[in-house]
């Protein structure tokens, strides 16, 4: 397994090559603006938390009055420390953000956002069915994630990270996605 700094360097190198070939972007662009794919994806996960509304009971705790917003990772973790760095000190509607890594789907039901790693692609339908009825925003980057019943699937187009949203799946999970997010997404209806 490649460590994250190493991976970062590789991505940066690739981006540099792409930037040079492109001819329109500069070195500084690449460094400052073109963050690495997983930096972006980590940030996107945080942004999703701000544009999605969970049912009130899932995020409120009777004893403390507030609960952490859990970003779960199921399967191989592609982020390394990137996700923790991204969400450090951040809050969404006064909910502290925390990252948890799950081995089993059943545990993963406790998360609010669940990143389903591409390593779980063969097991996806089982995972999704296990999450049925839980207010969990499922995010994946495997091909056809959203059309296979996942809620938000990352796409990489022309070196840009885009995403698609399965409106039906979101609805079934009892979540609300902001129009701000919807307009940026490719909408998938089936499943």
């Amino acid at each position, binding site marked *: 397994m490649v460590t994250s700094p190493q991976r970062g360097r590789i991505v940066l190198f690739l981006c540099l090559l792409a930037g040079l070939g492109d001819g329109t972007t500069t070195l500084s662009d690449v460094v*400052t*603006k073109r963050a690495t794919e997983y930096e*972006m994806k980590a*940030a*996107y996960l945080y*942004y999703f938390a*701000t*544009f999605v509304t969970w049912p009130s009971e899932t995020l409120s705790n009777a004893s403390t009055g507030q609960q952490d917003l859990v970003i779960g990772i199921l399967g191989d973790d592609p982020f390394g420390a990137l996700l923790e760095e991204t969400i450090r000190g*951040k*809050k*969404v509607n006064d909910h502290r953000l925390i990252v948890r890594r799950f081995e089993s789907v059943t545990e993963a039901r406790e998360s609010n956002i669940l990143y389903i790693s591409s390593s779980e692609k063969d097991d996806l339908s089982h995972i999704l069915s296990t999450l049925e009825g839980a207010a969990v925003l499922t995010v994946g980057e495997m091909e056809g994630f959203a059309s296979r019943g996942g809620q938000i699937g990352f796409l990489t187009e022309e070196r*840009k*990270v*885009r*995403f698609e949203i399965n409106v039906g799946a979101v609805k079934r999970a009892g979540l609300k996605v*902001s129009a*701000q*997010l919807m*307009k*940026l997404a490719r909408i998938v209806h089936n499943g």
Partner: protein
Amino acid sequence: MKTLSGGSVRKQLILASVLSSGTALVLVGAAMVGYDALELRRALIRRLSVQADIVGANGVSAILFSDQESAEKTLAAFRADPRVIAASIYADGQRFATYLRDPGMESDLLDEGLNLASGGHRLDRDLLLLSKDLVFEGKTIGRVVVASELTEMKTAMLRGGVLVSVVLAGSLGIAIVISSRLQRRITEPVRRLADVARRVSQDRDYSVRASGAGNEEIDSLILSFNEMLEEIRKQQHELRAAHDKLELRVAERTAQLKAANDELEAFSYSVSHDLRAPLRHIAGFAEMLEGQSASLGEEGRRCLKKISLAATRMGQLIDDLLSFSRIGRSDMQTTPVNLSQLVEEVVREARAEEKVPAEWRLGTLPVVKGDRALLRLVFTNLISNAIKYSSKDAHPRIEVKLAGKEDGEVVVCVSDNGVGFDMAYASKLFGVFQRLHRADEFEGTGIGLANVRRIVHRHGGRTWAEGVPGQGASFYLSLPVEQRLP
């Protein structure tokens, strides 16, 4: 209407009201348009700020997810407002997405929005630039800059200007109409008053009165004017009454004087007349005594001679007095009298008295109006005087001439180079029985010049004399000229 100080009251009144209303309207109009512009500007900024807020809020996710396309779509919402000519979303100080109303236009002006504070704006001549920060979770992630045209404001200003101009023109027109009506109420009575004043001064008719105007100040002016007229009329009336009274008194006194004079004349006439009878006795008896003069002795005869002479002289005096009296009492028969002719006649008769032939110079004299017989007496007296008083000269020279002609009267002068007189006694010359020479020097009673004065006075003329002792005398008389002849 060249200046405020010139022209008639009428014009000045109109000008004053038009100026005041015009000034008020311009001020009000300017204030309204100015306030409008200010309000409009504020509204424009507010509107653009709200639009920037909305678009910015919608653009936040696009920045977060680096979705330029979406950001551009978001900015495209500005298309609904044609006043917005350009807008940009900036992220990390770089242009992220841009909207241009007219494709191909310069968009660099938007970059200046980066220098503004968030929510700040810059108002140029025809551009409003407004900038808003885009905030995500308390963090500024970008900025939206909007540029809007000010055509709306300009149009509003223009519309306001046109409206104010139209209202101004209309109101000034109405102000002119109203003020010209009002001013007529002020100037018309003043004009009428001036007319009355003119009539009063021209016709001296103090009975006319000016009528009221229904205007406090001018009514009081008219009232004072009328009171003044009444005062003048009263004073004139009193003056006339006093004058009439005076006339009456003069007439009365004149009548009294005339009566007294008449009485006096009648008295002197009858006295003179009555004196003749005893005088005739004295003269008669003196004559009788002369026949018996042998018995009287030398002294007796001398006395008798003196009595006789005195009686004769007294008779002469009484005759003269009677003739003088008659001149005053006789009726005048006024006819045109040719003085040249008259003087020639008189001179012809008088030359019999000449002791030394005199040198006669007779000028042409005019025709006057008067009593021929009386005027003849005048010239007889004057000419015989001239002969008498120049008789002692070796070369007597007597002149009768026209000495002057003025104001409807002629002045005739009879002069000689005789003994003359001292001017100190000039005033006594024309008195009854006044003589400047002794009777043994020049004979005469001294009634001649008195008669001359009396006759000339009765003709309405004057007499005067000039003389130098030993060099001669000039006697002047003025007579009213005959009107029919030049």
